[in-house]
């Protein structure tokens, strides 16, 4: 649904997006992660046919973002970085305007549907200026959905929201994904990307890596297993080393940490050796690294 080929954008001397090659499949949710100024918003703007690439090309929903800009605009919904509501207009009128602009058939019906879905129906006639940040964000999300776009660009949908509002929005994005929409999610929130996205792209002016979160964790840290003992004695450690398996060992208190390419193959032998050496095994736990550590590791290595 989204294909970019050497997509590049300059602002004068500044290279905001550098030869981005990215493919997002129909129904996929891609997390687009990167620090401030990485060029995420610039990328979204190019893909929504708001600004033109300096070089390279992109197709969105099968249309070229430069030559068929109008079709692209009809097919995508965008949640901009700031909600950008008309504060003096009511929630309903804000949405009705955009329903008309997108050429929606049943404007009133769509407006009612989304206001109700996001819990704003009771406040429909209040000026948007009186809304809280969370409500404003929800209203902006309604606005992006009125024309039922198959592709959604969400630029930091939960930043500046309190945890509860953020969860609501996150759940709603999950629902949109389950409806089969393609979602391009810019975020700083790695948990969010982990929860919602099929793949994450780490981006800082250029694409550093794109993969599933699980695979990124393994690639960066290998897979690890922790074996907690009642007491860790030198002979336990020695017994494991004596096995001569391809595994790295580290002791943390009474816990032995194993790192290997394929822990599933090694763990049984290690546990058996420990038990035979007289160790009392209390727990064997696989370790999941947070995406945040992976992110910091990759970003830290890429100035």
């Amino acid at each position, binding site marked *: 649904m989204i294909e970019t080929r050497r997509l590049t954008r300059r602002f004068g001397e500044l290279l905001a997006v550098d030869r981005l090659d990215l493919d997002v499949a129909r129904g996929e949710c891609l997390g687009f992660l990167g620090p401030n100024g990485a060029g995420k918003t610039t990328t979204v703007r190019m893909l929504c046919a*708001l*600004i033109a690439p300096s070089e390279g090309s992109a197709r969105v929903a099968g249309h070229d973002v430069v030559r068929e800009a109008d079709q692209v605009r*009809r097919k995508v919904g965008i949640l*901009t970085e700031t909600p950008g*509501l008309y504060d003096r*207009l009511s929630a309903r009128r804000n949405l009705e*305007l955009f329903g008309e*602009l997108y*050429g929606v058939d049943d404007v009133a019906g769509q407006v009612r549907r989304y206001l109700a879905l996001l819990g704003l129906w009771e406040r429909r006639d209040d000026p948007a200026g009186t809304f809280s940040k969370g409500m404003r964000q929800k209203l*902006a999300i309604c606005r992006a959905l009125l024309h039922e776009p198959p592709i959604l660009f969400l630029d930091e949908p939960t930043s500046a929201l309190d945890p509860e509002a953020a969860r609501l929005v996150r759940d709603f994005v999950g629902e949109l994904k389950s409806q089969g929409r393609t979602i391009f999610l810019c975020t700083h929130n790695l948990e969010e990307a982990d929860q919602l996205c099929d793949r994450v792209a780490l981006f800082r002016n250029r694409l550093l890596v794109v993969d599933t979160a699980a695979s990124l964790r393994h690639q960066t840290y290998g897979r690890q297993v922790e074996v907690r003992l009642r007491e860790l004695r030198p002979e336990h450690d020695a017994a494991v080393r004596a096995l001569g398996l391809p595994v790295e060992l580290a002791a943390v208190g009474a816990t032995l940490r194993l790192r290997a390419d394929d822990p599933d193959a090694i763990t049984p032998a290690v546990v058996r050796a420990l038990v035979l050496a007289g160790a009392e095994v209390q727990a064997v736990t696989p370790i999941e690294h947070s995406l945040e550590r992976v992110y910091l590791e990759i970003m830290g290595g890429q100035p």
Partner: protein
Amino acid sequence: MNRRVRAVLRKEWEEVFKNGLVLFTMVFTPLLFVVMGVGTVGGTGMATRGAPPMSQAEAAELRKLAGEQCAGLDGAACLDLYLGTLMLLLFMMLPLILPTVFAAYSVVGEKTGRTLEPLLATPIRTTELLLAKVLAAAVPAVVVTWGGVACYLGGLALLGEGGTARALLSPAWLAAVGVLAPLLAVGGVLAAVIVSSRVNDPRTAQQLSGVVVMPLAMVLVGQSMGLFIVDAAMVGVAVVVMVVLDLALAWVSVALFDRENVLTRWKGA
């Protein structure tokens, strides 16, 4: 007018007229002009009616100021007509002042509210957006101008200056109010739109685009000093000049409202 233009137009009216300052300007300025116009012309009319006729020298002096239009009129009627046209010139400022205020608040409001990006993400065309903005500001300004002129002339008639009011309804002035005023309004909006894209405070935008009133103010001063009087030829020339000017301003504005321009080069958008 298509659906998108209508939608933006409606939004503009709902939004900007909720701004007290814009509404106040739209209502108060023409009201002030009507009171001034009717007061000045009607007042002098009443004052001169009982008074002894002008001296020969005075009448000659006035004729020099008022020129052609006074042909065949006595001194008092000439004075009324002279003042009456000056006031009518004042009304011609309305289509310049009013839409500038409206457009300044409309465009700067879109910038400070960051509403332009979602708007430009829709399939609206640059020309449609601009057309809606121009109509939104120009139509009320023209309507208010026409209403103001009607009240002015009606007020004169009520104060026994029916003759003056009828004399003011010359072809030249009908063309000025009927054709030139809308052209001035469009020019005023476009100038304000261009200025507003460059500044982030509606008052600054309004003041900067307020300079469009200057040429008209000069005409007013020129006529009051008897340097020339507005006649059909002059209105005709002004109409042609304004058509050309409006087209040029529209061309600049369309380029300025291009998505790329708005999102990457506008100050504060």
